[in-house]
């Protein structure tokens, strides 16, 4: 049977009047889209290979290249879209699962865009962050309900409470888990160094810790996932906190898969697996089949690290996230990270990424409310993750009840990522989701660190402006303060779950 070609997604438009045939695009494209013909001294393109990463467009010195979406192909059809036809075609040919990268791109409602923030007028002066102090510091970790004090012989107050270990965040934003292996070492170095300089934390994912990253231990959350890759005593001791990964928003309920092509010598050392073998982490932890098993692992990890490190648990936002989170809090977790369905991934079956889980907005609102109802909210910190695009999203999540947020996709975009969703191929032209030494060197960590720092700085300034507008000078007073949020274009039920009033209703 004749093979039907899968539809071409992008068209490389080359302005002949501007192309100088310098061949920068030819040399740089890892997908071999651009072809140089020495006889005619011209460059042509193979559109079918283009993934739309825009690397060539960025480098072209004469702006001769424009990557455009291919508008032609099939008759418009609301049911049988180009991507549906293309997926079916691929599956008919290969009999395989369709893989993809990054977060869900389907047009489900983004609730952040249906929530509006408050500002002061007349009765309460807004605060100008350029002239007045504005505090963004947060502490992540388990806290007692009350402080215990004592008086010494001189009548001076003495502190009796011994706080459990906390993570100090200068800005309530952290870099979410991305494993060395799924992303390049230069990406990890950029995240680690930026975290160090910003006073925040990054997360190793389940990639273990490359030897060059140990020096950033104080700003590292080390992750333990179902594959236990790279876990050894020194790894546990090096991080500032330990995170048990139960699930991921992009692929709740399934494990991870790092293809053997990405398992280079150094990746294999960090993960403690043979070079070139697929690193497959199982769907569940095979020592956690219940909440009491989780409790045991949390305490085993605390024992192993002399109770010096907070132990958090990361779960995907699924339908039962509320009771699950409550159970996790009761199992002794110091923080719960909840990853919504728009969270990214290096590789996931497309059908799972696009159809499983719930948005982080509902998850964080419902979990925060339930933990308060149960009187255990102070015992555990909440971290929201999954598709935070701007400081606006971040501040809304904090007002809904998150103590801090995890960002990853936006951090990668800061490093160059253009959301082509081809991370699983290992051919990332931006040097991010690849281990190919020809490609990884394209991410200069010096530039990476600066761009990440710029992003967080920019968001911090914006958050300060928004806080000041609300008449608040400490993020502490916004966390869980839903009176500053209003819903727009939402049903009563949605407003109820988010725990906010409608726009137009006073406080």
């Amino acid at each position, binding site marked *: 049977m004749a093979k039907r070609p899968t539809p071409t997604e992008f068209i490389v438009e080359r302005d002949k*009047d*501007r192309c*100088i*045939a*310098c*061949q*920068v695009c030819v*040399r*740089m494209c890892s997908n071999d889209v651009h072809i140089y013909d020495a006889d005619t001294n011209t460059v042509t393109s193979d559109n079918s290979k283009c993934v739309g990463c825009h690397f060539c467009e*960025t*480098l072209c*010195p*004469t702006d001769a290249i424009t990557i455009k979406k291919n508008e032609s192909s099939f008759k418009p059809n609301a049911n049988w879209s180009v991507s549906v036809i293309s997926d079916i075609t691929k599956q008919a040919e290969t009999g395989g699962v369709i893989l993809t990268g990054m977060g869900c791109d389907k047009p489900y409602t983004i609730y952040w865009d249906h929530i509006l923030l408050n500002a002061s007028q007349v009765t309460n002066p807004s605060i100008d962050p350029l002239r007045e102090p504005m505090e963004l510091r947060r502490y992540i970790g388990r806290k007692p309900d009350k402080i215990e004090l004592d008086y010494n012989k001189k009548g001076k107050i003495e502190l009796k409470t011994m706080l459990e270990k906390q993570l100090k965040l200068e800005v309530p934003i952290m870099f979410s888990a991305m494993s060395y292996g799924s992303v390049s070492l230069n990406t990890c170095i950029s995240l680690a160094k930026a975290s160090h300089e910003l006073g925040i934390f990054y997360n190793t994912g389940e990639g273990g810790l490359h030897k060059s990253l140990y020096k950033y231990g104080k700003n590292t959350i080390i992750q333990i996932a179902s594959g236990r890759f790279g876990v050894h005593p020194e790894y546990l001791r090096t991080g500032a906190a330990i995170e048990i990964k139960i699930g991921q928003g992009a692929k709740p309920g399934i494990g991870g898969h790092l293809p053997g092509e990405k398992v280079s010598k150094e990746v294999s050392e960090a993960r403690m697996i043979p070079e070139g073998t697929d690193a497959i982490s199982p769907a569940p932890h095979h020592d956690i089949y219940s909440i009491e098993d989780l409790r045991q692992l949390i305490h085993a990890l605390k024992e192993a690290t002399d109770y010096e490190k907070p132990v958090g648990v990361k779960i995907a936002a699924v339908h039962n996230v509320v009771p699950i989170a409550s159970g996790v809090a009761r199992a002794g977790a110091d923080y719960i990270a909840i990853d919504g369905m728009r969270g990214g991934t290096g590789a996931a079956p497309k059908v799972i990424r696009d159809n499983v889980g719930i948005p982080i907005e509902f998850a964080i609102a419902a979990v925060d409310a339930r933990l308060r109802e149960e009187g255990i909210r102070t015992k555990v910190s909440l971290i929201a993750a999954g598709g935070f695009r701007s400081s606006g999203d971040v501040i809304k999540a904090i007002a809904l009840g998150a103590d801090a947020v995890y960002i990853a996709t936006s951090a990668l975009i800061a490093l160059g990522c253009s959301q082509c969703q081809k991370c699983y191929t290992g051919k990332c032209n931006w040097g991010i989701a690849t281990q190919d*030494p*020809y490609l990884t*060197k*394209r991410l*200069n960590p*010096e*530039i990476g660190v600066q761009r990440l720092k710029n992003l967080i700085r920019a968001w911090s300034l914006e958050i300060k402006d928004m806080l000041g507008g609300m008449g608040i000078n400490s993020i502490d007073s916004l966390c869980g303060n839903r009176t500053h949020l209003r819903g727009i274009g939402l049903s009563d039920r949605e407003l109820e779950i988010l725990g906010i009033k409608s726009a137009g209703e006073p406080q």
Partner: protein
Amino acid sequence: MKRIRIDEKYCMGCRLCEVHCIVQHSKTKNILKTYMGECSKPAPRIFVEEKGYVTFALQCRHCEDAPCLDACMTGAMYRDKETGAVLCSEDKCVGCWMCIMVCPFGVISRSSDKKIASKCDLCMGEDMPVCVKNCPNEALKYEDSKD
């Protein structure tokens, strides 16, 4: 004294440095005219070397003990007093190619249109050599040499 330094770890091998070097030393300094209008475009004075995954851009090192200075019989090669750069005076150069013969780095070439030597001049007159300015990954740096 400022010199161009390459961090080969981050050289992507895109060769944009060569393109911008060519444009900078062209008549019009306009990229489209240089490549499509001018009768002969200049040769690059920076060369990207490639071996396996390693790529790096090389140009005149402006050696402290520069063999080209000794080898030049007309005195066309000279050291700029202010910057310490090794430069070639076009009016004096007769194209004997001795400098090309003795250069240990192979970074002097023949000019594409005249019978004179062509080499990196650190883009005299610019704030920063154009290869450094346009390196997309900041692999090329223009900094004070430590020794």
